[in-house]
Every structure is written in structure tokens, then in C-alpha cells.
């Protein structure tokens, strides 16, 4: 995973997890690495990994039962919301980028369909 240098690292880590969850790469209830393992894998500060986990726990993205490793949420509603959020975020970015060009909506949708299927 590649980090950009201007966004807080913990937010980038959370985004990374959201993508993995939304794409189904992480399945509901799947165990995730400990904060130490994560720090080691991503070459980030363990405190940052800790912070990311804490925020994700609060947002209900992951959960921890007793002393066992943290797991991805089984709550379909939360997963659905993450998916919607990511899609909507991407669309927002797209719209912001395309609007200044003044292309018509039909034109954009046509091209979008073409490209999306190709890709």
C-alpha cells in the first residue's frame, strides 16, 4: 500500500480497510492483523495503527470480543453503508473533475458505460 504524505496516515489506513471491505476482499467476520502486524506490514508507526483501529472500532467497521483478534464487522447494514459511501465519494470526485469541461450528461454517461465495460 502506498501512502500519500499529506493526509493523516490513520485516515489512509481506514480508507484502505473500507476499500477492502467494500470490494469483499475482507469478508464479514474475517480476522484482521493485530495493530503490531499491521504497523509492520504497512511500515507505519504502531501508534498510528492503534489510532486507525480505535476509530474503526468506534465506527463499527471492526469489532473485538474479549482478548481475541479484531474482526471485520458482520453487520450487513454497515458494510452496505461503507459501499455506498465509497461509491458516492468516487462519483463526487468524478463529477467535480468533469463539470468544468461542460460535457453533456448523455455524452458522459455514454463514454462512462463504454470505459467501465472495457476496464
Amino acid at each position, binding site marked *: 500500500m502506498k*501512502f500519500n*504524505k*499529506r*493526509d*493523516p*496516515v*490513520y*485516515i489512509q489506513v481506514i480508507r484502505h480497510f473500507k476499500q477492502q471491505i467494500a470490494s469483499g476482499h475482507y469478508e464479514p467476520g474475517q480476522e484482521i492483523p493485530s495493530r*503490531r502486524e499491521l*504497523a*509492520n506490514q*504497512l*511500515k*507505519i*508507526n*504502531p*501508534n*498510528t495503527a492503534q*489510532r486507525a483501529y480505535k476509530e474503526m472500532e468506534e465506527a463499527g467497521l471492526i469489532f473485538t470480543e474479549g482478548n481475541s483478534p479484531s474482526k471485520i464487522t458482520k453487520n450487513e447494514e454497515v458494510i452496505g453503508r461503507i459501499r455506498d459511501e465509497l461509491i458516492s465519494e468516487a462519483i463526487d470526485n468524478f463529477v467535480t473533475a468533469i463539470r468544468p469541461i461542460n460535457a453533456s450528461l448523455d455524452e458522459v454517461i455514454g463514454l462512462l458505460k463504454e470505459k467501465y465495460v472495457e476496464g
Partner: protein
Amino acid sequence: MIEVKDIKKNFGLKKVLKGVSFTANKGEITCLIGINGAGKTTIMNAIMNLTPIKGGEILIDSERLTKETYEKITFIPDAITMLPQMKIGEALQFMKDFYKSWNEERAKELLSFFRLKEEEKISSLSKGNTAKVNLLLGLGLDVDYLLMDEPFSGIDIFSREQITEVFTSHLVEDRGVIITTHEINDIEHLIDKAVLLDDGKVLREFRTEEVRELEGKSVVDVMREVYQR
């Protein structure tokens, strides 16, 4: 917590530290950044009472350094602190002989992590491996605070990667780490706090995540701002 309060130092007529203050917390990695000659190494030496200071005060967990403090804070300079004619095993034995806080188990673990052998003579090691032995001498101690002077300078990329791994591992867990560097790129994501130094003064002390979150700036952005002012 390590508190450096308004320390001053001269080398002859040259003022190398002109009232430096900052703090470094336990469980965090604090990075002193500055070009060569900014006073980074002198600050490290001063914290360890390896060089006298002219004014100010340094407190480690609210106390001044005594001989017992060397069991809970250690310094890894940029050159190895053992005799070149010693074997690695002898160097480790020396540490075991003198320090109560020496953790033999961890030393063994580090030895295999770095792929070093006890029979190897220090003088016969490559630059990267010498740096690893040097690191091992500090990391093998169960200390609360660890000071490292330019741990990445002048060593090959693979040794660099291995050493970076140390920082994200349990080997550094819960310790307070202060490292100096003039090259921030590799470790930007590793540090909790940056202290920008120039010409014997602290120009800015900040938490890296805070600067990213509140100002949307990278460490390098802040450096550019501060140093080009």
C-alpha cells in the same frame, strides 16, 4: 518523558545550541530533523551527559540523569560503541556483564533477525552489519528510552529496510525513541513527532498526524515552509 529545557552550548566561540527546548514522550518516536551542524548530535550527547551544557536543564521522567539512569535510557551513536577487535559474542557478553537491563533473549532474537553470528569479529563486518550490531547493543537493553543518531545514514538499502522494520516491531514497543536524521523521506510515516532544528535553535516542534489532519501538510511541506522562511 524526556524534557529538554532551554539548553545552551558553545564550542569555543561558536554557539552550537542557543536555547533548545522540546519534549519526547514514552511510547512515541520523536525525530530531530536538521542539516549537519544543526546541533542534533550535540543534543543527544547532552541528554546522555556525554558533553557538558552551559545552561538549561534536561529531565528524564522528571529527574536529572544519574548513573542508574543508564539502565533506562541508552544512546546508539552513529559509530559502533565496542572495540573492533571484539567478536559480536564478546560485545554482547560485555553488555550482559555491566547492565542489569540487558535482555539476553531479545539480543538472541535480534541476532537472528539481523542474520549475524556471534563468532564474527566486529572489524570484519560490512558497514551495514556494523550498524546492526551497534543497534543491537542498544535494542538489547530493556530501557524506556532509546536515542539513535542517524540510524540510516550510509548503509545499504536492505539494511535500511531491516532497520525500518525494527521501528514498527515489538522491539521498540512502548519505548520512547528519539532519532536524528537529515533525510526524512523514508521514515515520514514512522514518526509521531518532528522537531525541526537549525543553527542551534528549534524552529518548530509538531505532531506529524496533527499537521496532516489540521493543515493538510506533509512533514516535508512544513520543512520547506520553516527552512525557507
